[in-house]
């Protein structure tokens, strides 16, 4: 028995070596045949339906499926129906990787739509990169990524901040207190904020990171009282947002004098904390549910009709919705050609779509998206009043804070 095993191991080593040479080519040829077959376009949907981030990700799943349904009802793509394969990655990065492999290798989907957290996107990257698939990622994130196998439709730091920070300085003052949850997104946003402040002659009077899920802000609020900033710049996420707003109000601070300026507080968080705690604070995002455009009215009405009158749309579910349309246009553009993920990627460049937030466009330089940042003031009724909107859509610069590094269609370049 022992010798058998040894032989197996030897054979396997040889086979393994043989396999790793020259096998990607074969696979891709087969894949392109599989992708085009059947008169339908198979896509994978990878948003958690269970686990810690399920509440928000479910809204992304719903927005995505609604878009697919609308497209199919209107005749599909060049007569082909989009066939969604829905998986539940259970808010766990390892499960994200497992399901992504199933969708890419097992189901041979031509694109995947998914992820809310950066951790889950990072877990999916190895498989989409190795097998040249395409991942459509709807969430605002920290930037600094230049994958040739991802289309990013959420905002990167420069888009959320380049109008917001000057506006805050102009209206409230130059002293900022930075507070965020302790992970990469807040740190990166604050790196950008600090650069912008320096240009404007502002100063950072405090910088604080709290663990994810943290709910005790009394020491932070004491420091804020001591340093008296003009703006509290917040990138706190999740349940901590609720605790921070409530304790801010309990401490007797006044939003008119020292507002919280957030990149992460959406209608969902306000619903969880209650409008009276959010009132008077500001958020910068490309989309608010209250935004007045015919496309948005249609989007919100359709969403409520399909999933219930109490449902809210937010700045992540809106890209989860419009990115399916961008995908559709890209596949449409391919016409009779083989529908393969790399071809879809190329065809998606420069695609424009009239999204609920405005006309969005995929930047061919870095596969991120031109967006329409807005500044919203939270209202007692849980919605945002839109105070400012950029005059034109803002170019995505995922390496904005890092001069010398440029994202190109061939990957990251060091200038």
């Amino acid at each position, binding site marked *: *028995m022992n010798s*058998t*095993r040894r032989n*197996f*191991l030897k054979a*396997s*080593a040889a*086979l*393994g*070596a043989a*396999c*790793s040479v020259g096998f990607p080519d074969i*696979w891709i040829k087969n894949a392109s045949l599989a992708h085009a077959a059947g008169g339908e376009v198979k896509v994978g949907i990878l948003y958690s*339906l*269970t686990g810690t981030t399920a509440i928000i990700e479910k809204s992304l799943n719903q927005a995505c499926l609604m878009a697919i349904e609308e497209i199919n009802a209107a005749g599909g793509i060049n007569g082909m129906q989009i066939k969604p394969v*829905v*998986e*539940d990655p*259970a808010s*766990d*990065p*390892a499960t994200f*990787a*497992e*399901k992504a*492999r*199933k969708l890419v*290798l*097992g189901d041979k989907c031509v694109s995947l739509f998914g992820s809310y*957290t*950066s*951790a889950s996107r*990072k*877990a999916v*990257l*190895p*498989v989409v990169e*190795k097998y040249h698939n395409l991942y459509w990622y709807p969430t605002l994130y*920290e930037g*600094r990524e230049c994958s040739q196998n991802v289309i990013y439709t959420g905002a990167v730091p420069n888009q959320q901040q380049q109008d917001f920070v000057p506006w805050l300085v102009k209206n409230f003052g130059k002293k900022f207190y930075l507070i965020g949850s*302790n*992970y*990469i997104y807040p*740190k*990166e946003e604050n*790196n950008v904020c600090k650069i912008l402040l320096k240009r404007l002659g502002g100063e950072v009077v405090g910088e604080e990171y709290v*663990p*994810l899920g943290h709910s005790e802000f009394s020491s932070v609020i004491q420091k804020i009282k001591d340093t008296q900033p003009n703006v509290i710049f917040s990138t706190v996420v999740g349940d901590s947002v609720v605790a921070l707003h409530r304790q801010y109000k309990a401490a007797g601070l006044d939003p008119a004098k020292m507002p919280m300026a957030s990149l992460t507080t959406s209608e969902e968080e306000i619903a969880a904390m209650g409008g009276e705690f959010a009132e008077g604070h500001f958020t910068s995002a490309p989309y608010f549910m209250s935004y007045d455009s015919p496309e948005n009215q249609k989007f919100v009405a359709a969403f409520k009709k399909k999933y219930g009158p109490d449902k809210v749309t937010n700045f992540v579910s809106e890209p989860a919705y419009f990115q399916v349309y961008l995908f559709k246009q890209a596949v449409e553009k391919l016409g009779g050609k083989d529908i393969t993920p790399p071809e879809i990627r190329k065809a998606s460049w420069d695609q424009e779509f009239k999204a609920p937030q405005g006309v969005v466009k995929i930047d061919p330089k870095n596969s991120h998206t031109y967006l329409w940042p807005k500044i919203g003031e939270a209202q007692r009724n849980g919605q945002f009043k839109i105070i400012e909107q950029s005059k034109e859509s803002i170019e995505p610069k995922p390496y904005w804070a890092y001069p010398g590094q440029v994202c190109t269609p061939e*990957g*990251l*370049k*060091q200038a």
Partner: protein
Amino acid sequence: MTDTNSMRWRLTGYVLFCVIILVFPYILNNDYLLNKYARYLIFGVLSAALSFSWGYTGILNLGQAVSFGLGSYAMAMALKLRTIPIQTGAGGLPDFMVWNNVKALPWFWEPFHSYTFAVFAGLGIPMLLAFVLGWFMFRGRITGVFVAIITLAMLVVINLVIVDQQKYTGGFNGITDLSTFKAFGVGFDAYSLSTYYLVAGTLCVVLLGGLAITRTKLGLILQAIRDDENRVRYFGYDVASYQNFAFTLSAGVAGFAGMLYTLVMEFASPTFLSVQLSLSIVIWCAVGGRGSLLGAALGAILVTGVQGNLSESPTFLDTWMLIMGAIFIIVVLFLPNGLISLAEKGVRLLKHKSARETATHPVAGAAIATFDSKRVRES
């Protein structure tokens, strides 16, 4: 007599299982499935390791994922230092360190330039940690539920440290964007046959090696400690050392499984040392049968396999968690010694065993029977 007989059956079962997993790629050579099953087999290794400390020695380690995660990080650190330089900072500094404004590679990352060091670290760090923790626990005669609480606390602490120290660990995202492991001229790509065989071979060695240990005097003492610690102590054995041996060995195997997991998943994440995963290992072990290494391994493979396939079927997309929960409850209620006890009952029926034997502990029945007779003689 019956003892050797039952051993023969058990050995047949173990060997049959090893043959199946080794032949498997010849039946189904598909890189996606190889990768998928390699992942399940790693859970099998992890679960068998827990069975060694829990089922055989009576140490319920709720922090098994610590060893697994540390092994995974050790491998990921070595692979991270070999990624293509453009994705990293000056001098090959990992990307997440650049984002966190770290200027130079921290000292404890330096040795991971060497694969040899990384492999020894992946084994050695979990073992050292387990040994030190075990030394304090078992010398202090801490047993039962308190061991479970301490190991669980250890897990939470280490997990928090890793998430918090993102400058050095990649924090919440873990260590991603890794190169492929190469050793002795063979590349271990996540989807390759070589990786599958590395994993399957490890599981075979762990199962057969583990079975061999349980048959030695050492193994019998471990099982005796599980059944009655004080009695063994009165016999003059140094119980704490035996317990620590099982605890540390189990940690080493889990650490090795963690290294393999990084190869198969292509990243390391703090969720690999999550409470959720650690409790899952206990569930796999309980479902399969904690008193049998093979049972525990099968439990892991079955539970994760069923879970994977159930959640992939559109019919069960919304209900798969409920179904898994129901399965666990049913097994724990009706098969307290796990699914493997079904097989053992089957064997016994086949052999028309006497009623006396059925009454003894059905899982480690044979081993205990030996000890029982010894005990009777000595008392």
